[in-house]
């Protein structure tokens, strides 16, 4: 149970950080707490990584002390911004509707929790990749870099370490890699993702009907399975959602703090998976384009250019350090454009498109993709105005890159590879697609 003390420290850290970033026009307390919790876990994970950077091993007292110091510093600064009229924790902001929404979300998480209990060690990639890396970090001593050994090529040695570090952070409060911790984290992140989706839509549309968005997400059994599998795709989806959501909150109430939150979320996204890194770069480019093409935004953001640039550098720093100094070259990459032994072909590309077309109509999605497409078509004007056009641009660019990788990398047999991975690529972008749809129809 002491493991969860780490979660509380992260929650407090993340909340205080958000308080510092946002001015008086900040979202309501529920949004702040849920987003703060997510931020705090990611921040704690990156602070945990410094133990490996500086000391080449896990030193639990150092990590715990560092996180507590960070919390004290953030809390001190956040307290200085508060006043009797603007308390640090404005509990009165929690309305009956917010309470009802949290209760509904709590009920929706129950199936995720029950499914997780049936598979306490998660899914395949949890055993062979994410939890393996976490155990290497926690128990490897100064041999933690063994996780990058080519012998472990099945474990995606080039993948970044956000999720394993979150688990390692909580394990630091105990002496063994308890399987309850990754299980708890997967349920928690699912809850935070659903909560951020609802409360963001509520902030932007002021409609309680936004509760249908997370309800739809969590009513699909396949989503429940993937959410409880202890995979990093959940983090990819949640940070991507937060980046997009923060951008639209900035458009609604121009506080550069929201852009900083978006940048930090994208920085965290880049440290989740290789796909997360690609998505973060595409999203950063897309959101920058969406802002800079408007003279009004350029003018408004010029005074903040320096702080936004520094935020971007800091946000992506840990990911950059990992990619440059630690990540090995991928052991599962053959460039089919240049390989004579395993060349690629147009048939391979056609197979990707055919598989994608069949995948989105399979019964396991409960008609989500068709209904989503129908909803966007019916409200096509509202789905593209007020800056919303950037969402499909980002998504289509991302999918184009992913399809390109499937086409060019001939290491794996294509149908097998698609059947193992395409559904997770789609799972990660669902929260943002739901956000887009509900923004258009509410």
């Amino acid at each position, binding site marked *: 149970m002491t493991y969860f003390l780490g979660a509380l420290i992260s929650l407090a850290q993340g909340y205080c950080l958000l308080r510092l970033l946002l001015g008086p*026009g900040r979202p309501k307390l529920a949004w702040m707490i849920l987003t703060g919790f997510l931020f705090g876990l990611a921040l704690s994970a990156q602070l945990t990584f410094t133990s490996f950077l500086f000391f080449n091993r896990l030193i639990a007292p150092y990590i715990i002390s560092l996180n507590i110091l960070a919390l004290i510093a953030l809390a001190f600064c956040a307290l200085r911004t508060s006043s009797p009229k603007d308390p640090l924790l404005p509990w009165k902001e929690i309305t009956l509707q917010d309470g009802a929404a949290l209760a509904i979300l709590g009920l929706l998480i129950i*199936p995720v929790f*029950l*499914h997780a209990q*049936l*598979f*306490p*060690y998660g899914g*395949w990639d949890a*055993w*062979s990749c994410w*939890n*393996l890396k976490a*155990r*290497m970090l926690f*128990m*490897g*001593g100064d*041999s*933690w870099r*063994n996780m990058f*050994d080519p*012998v*472990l090529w*099945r*474990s995606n040695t080039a993948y970044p370490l956000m999720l394993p570090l979150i688990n390692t952070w909580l394990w630091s409060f105990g002496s063994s890699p308890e399987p309850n911790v990754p299980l708890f984290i997967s349920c928690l992140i699912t809850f935070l993702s659903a909560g951020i989706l609802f409360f963001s839509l509520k*902030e932007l*549309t*002021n*409609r309680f*009907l936004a509760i*249908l968005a997370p*309800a*739809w997400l969590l*009513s*699909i*059994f396949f989503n*429940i399975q993937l959410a409880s599998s202890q995979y990093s795709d959940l983090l990819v989806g949640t940070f991507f959602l937060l980046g997009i959501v923060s951008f639209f909150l900035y458009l*609604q*109430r121009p506080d550069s703090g929201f852009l900083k939150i978006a940048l930090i979320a994208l920085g965290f996204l880049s440290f989740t998976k290789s796909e997360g890194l690609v998505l973060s770069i595409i999203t950063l480019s897309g959101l920058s384009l969406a802002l800079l093409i408007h003279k009004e935004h350029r003018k408004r953001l010029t005074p903040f250019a320096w702080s936004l640039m520094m935020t971007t550098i800091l946000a992506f720093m840990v990911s950059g350090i990992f990619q440059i100094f630690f990540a090995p070259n991928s052991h599962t990459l053959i460039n089919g454009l240049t390989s004579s032994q395993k060349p690629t072909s147009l048939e391979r590309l056609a197979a990707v498109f055919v598989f994608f077309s069949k995948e989105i109509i399979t019964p396991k999605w*409960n*008609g*989500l993709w068709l*209904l989503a497409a*129908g*909803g966007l078509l*019916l*409200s096509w004007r509202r789905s593209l105005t007020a800056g919303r056009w950037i969402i499909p641009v980002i998504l289509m660019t991302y999918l184009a890159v992913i399809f390109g990788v499937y086409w060019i990398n001939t290491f794996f047999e294509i149908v097998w590879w698609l059947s193992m991975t395409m559904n997770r690529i789609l799972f990660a972008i669902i929260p943002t697609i739901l956000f887009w*749809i509900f923004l258009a*129809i*509410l």
Partner: protein
Amino acid sequence: MDQTRTPLPWKSKIILSAIALAILVGLFLAYHDLTILSAKRRNQPFVFAGKPFEMIKFLFKGERVIGYISDRNIDDKNIGAQFAQTQLGMAPIILDLNNLNHRFLILDCQDERNATNIMMKFNIRPIKRSNTGIIIAERDMP
């Protein structure tokens, strides 16, 4: 931030109704699938293949990599899962699949005669044997 709410357009109402229906159907199907899965789990409890290896990895203290020798088809879903869970249980020690060039070896053969033949051919000494036929062995390295 207070926002005045305009009535929802009819298109939005249609879409939201369809989504609400999808949610109800989804929740019913999810409940159904979860019930079936729970019943299956009651009949066949989850066994983490790595658990026995968590108990014995102290035998390999100081080793970074050990060999994992098997005559089973690792591409088979069940065998592959077993190997992945075994690796998780053995972490941070790495299992080098079907590589005999290590001091310590785990032999997990479907046919124990294969394991015996390997040990005789490569002068490998068995150290321990589990009641499921898994053998921990040591090899003299040059």
